[in-house]
C-alpha cells in the first residue's frame, strides 16, 4: 500500500484531539526536506477535513489519504 510513496518521516498523532494533530503536523513537516513526504497517522475524525484545510492554507500537498477503520493516514509532501 505505502510502497508507491517514499515516506521520509512518520508522525504518530493517534489519540490526539483538536487542535493537536494540525499543530504537530505543522511542526513535524519542517523536519523533512522540501519535496519529501511525511506520513501522519491520526484517529481524530475531524482531521479528515482539517488536514486538507491546513495543507491548502500552509501550501503543502496531501498526495494520498488512506483510511482503515479508525486510523487515517495522510501522505503529505512538503512544498514550503
Amino acid at each position: 500500500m505505502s510502497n508507491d510513496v517514499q515516506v521520509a518521516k512518520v508522525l504518530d498523532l493517534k489519540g490526539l484531539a483538536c487542535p493537536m494533530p494540525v499543530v504537530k503536523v505543522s511542526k513535524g513537516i519542517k523536519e523533512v526536506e522540501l519535496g519529501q513526504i511525511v506520513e501522519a497517522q491520526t484517529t481524530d475524525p475531524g482531521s479528515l477535513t482539517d488536514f486538507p484545510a491546513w495543507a491548502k492554507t500552509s501550501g503543502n500537498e496531501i498526495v494520498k489519504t488512506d483510511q482503515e477503520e479508525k486510523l487515517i493516514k495522510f501522505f503529505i509532501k512538503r512544498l514550503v
Partner: protein
Amino acid sequence: MDMQNIESQLEALKAQIEAVSKKTAENKLAMVVFSGDMDKVLAAFVIATGAVAMGMEVVMFFTFWGTPVLRDKKKKVGGKDMMGKMFGAMLPKGTGDVKLSNMNMGGMGTAMMKSLMKKKNVASLEEMLALAEELGVKIYVCEMSMDLMGFSRDEFIDYNDLGFAGVATFLAEAQNAKVQLFI
C-alpha cells in the same frame, strides 16, 4: 519631456503601492478574550494554537473577566486596598480556578468535564497555555481591567511573550490582522 512625465508617474505609482501595502491585512489573528469561563478560554486557545499551525501570527488580548485567568496561583502580592483584596479573593486565580460557562453545577460539572477531557485526550487549559507560549503566541493583558480589579503586574504568570497594554495596542494589532475574534 516625456521621460520626466514617466518618472513622475512612477513616483506617484510607488507612493500608491506603499499606501496600499500599509492597508493590506497581514496573515495574523487578533483575539479579544473577554470571557473568564473555562470552556470559552479553552476555545480561544484552541483557535490560537490552530492558527499558528496554519502559519498565522497570533495576538491575544485578555480583558475584563479574562484577566484573572492569567494570574499565577503561586504569586502573592501585598499592598492592595480593600476593594483590591476583595476582587483578588473572589476572582479566579489562574487557569485552575475557572469554571464552565454552562453546567458548572457548583463545580461538579467542571470537575467532570476536566476528567472527561483527560479521558478523551483533549488538552487542558494549562497545557494549551504552555503550548501557546511554545508556539510564540503573543498575549497582552488589559491595563484598565487590572486597575479596576486591583491586580498588579507581579501577580501574573511567567509567560514568554506577555505584555500589558490598552485598547490602542489591540486595535493597532487588529487593524492589519486578517482575522479578528471576540471571545
